[in-house]
């Protein structure tokens, strides 16, 4: 059961207002892979991530996480496996104090008190946020909010991590420590971002999404050096490669 596979098969998704956000997404991510999801604004990256744990269910096609197909019935089970970190930490941190927020997931998993405290301690320790534990989220800075949002998901010890623009709003140093931290997470992970340098740094594989379908899928080193492909998708070469 340790095979943390993510598989999308011909996934279509249409929003209630008629917008077709995903049109036949197809890919498979194997155990332990780190995959970057890139694409223009509005290409469907966020919608795709929301399919990872059943916040949205495909209009047609199947999503399989591990060995479970995603359905209305299995999504509780799948939510234990997949931790999603949303783009805006204010949406992610809804409890009145940092401690309560990080403890929210573990408590919902039904763990006992000692175990919850232990997990909160460990998760906050990983993001260097132990001294924030009694603060209310609205007294935190943007970078601190992001760290706590990550801790709140890590505390559930998910098999798969999905992040939506993790480095947006972070100052360069916080971004560096985020990158360092993400490299230590060895399970499967998916990162949707416009920060191509970050993807180049963390992910060995990269999927380009355009207009709701997969435009390219391959090693990051190949895709992120393909100037024409990137520019067709409103992207550009990672800054670290531009000077060459």
């Amino acid at each position, binding site marked *: 059961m340790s095979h943390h596979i993510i598989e999308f098969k011909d996934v279509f998704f249409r929003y209630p207002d008629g917008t077709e956000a995903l049109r036949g997404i197809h890919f498979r991510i194997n155990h332990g892979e780190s995959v970057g999801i890139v694409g223009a604004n509005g290409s469907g990256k966020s919608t795709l991530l*929301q399919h990872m*744990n059943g*916040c949205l269910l495909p209009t047609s096609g199947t999503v399989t996480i591990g060995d479970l197909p995603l359905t209305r019935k299995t999504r*509780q089970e799948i*939510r*234990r496996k*997949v*931790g*999603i970190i*949303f783009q*805006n930490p*204010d*949406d*992610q*941190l*809804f*409890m*009145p*104090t940092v*401690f*309560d927020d990080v*403890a*929210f*997931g573990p*408590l*919902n*998993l039904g763990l006992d*008190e000692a175990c*919850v*405290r232990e997990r909160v301690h460990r998760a906050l320790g990983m993001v260097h946020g132990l001294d924030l534990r009694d603060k*209310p*989220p*609205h007294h935190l800075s943007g970078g601190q909010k992001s760290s706590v949002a990550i801790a*709140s*998901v890590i505390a*559930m010890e998910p098999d798969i991590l999905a992040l939506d623009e993790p480095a947006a709003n972070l100052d360069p140093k916080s971004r560096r420590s985020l990158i360092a931290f993400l490299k230590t997470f060895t399970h499967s992970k998916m990162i949707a971002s416009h920060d191509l340098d970050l993807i180049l740094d963390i992910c060995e594989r990269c999927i380009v999404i355009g207009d709701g379908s997969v435009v390219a899928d391959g090693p990051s080193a190949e895709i992120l050096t393909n100037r024409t492909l990137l520019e067709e998708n409103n992207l550009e070469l990672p800054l670290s490669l531009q000077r060459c």
Partner: protein
Amino acid sequence: MTFDAQYFDIGRLDRLSYRDTFVHHLDPRVKVIATMLFLFTVISFPKYEVVALVPFFLFPVLLMTLGEIPVWFILRKVLLVSPFAILIGVFNPFLDTGTVAVIAGIPISAGSFSFLSILLKFTLTISAALLLIATTSFPGVCHALRRLGLPSLFVSQLLFQYRYIFVLMEEAMRITRARDMRSFGTRGAGIKVFVRLIGTLFVRTVDRAERIYYAMLSRGFQGDIPSLRRTRIDVTDLAYLTAMVMFLAVFRFFRITEGIGCFAQGLLR
């Protein structure tokens, strides 16, 4: 007061509750119960009562001193909401004209007493409620209410309100700033623009609520907000509550002010 100033003022009330004094350390449940008892006692006085209410000011004054809460801050807040109380009572002196006393040749109507009584009760109750919030963290109050038996749905509502009032106000502040930057003089400040602003804020709030709900679901939310907060009522808390009950009972059933008056007269004689 401008919007920004209001915003920072609410933030200040919140920050006060994170101080570190004797009052702040009391168990939230005890403080909630004490405040409720205080409110009911004050309200229970008959409508012409004035003299017996005065000793009750000892409670807010003590809390303010022990909790190191700035007096002006609380007074300003009380003044801010005072128009409600004043409007309710201001016509009493003219409607209830039976003379009950003559002081220095001027007849005092019963209505004046009931007006004064309303004002005193108002000041006492509002300042007690404000002091509860200023000396107890809001999550603490919520948790106390939950442990005292308030349904979890209401408590969750309160918790979310507290968490997101700051986010919402910041959003409103950004929208108003964006409007002010591009409306020169009065043109952009009209009611029509205002209505649209409110509309935008509403739509954004609904969107945000949806995103928050997704975030909650992603972390296994199934209807109840769990909590690990363990607080224990210790001797200090019990002592505080006992003192409070005795204080209230004595002030409610014995005419303290009269007693002090008689005692003073006795000394003078």
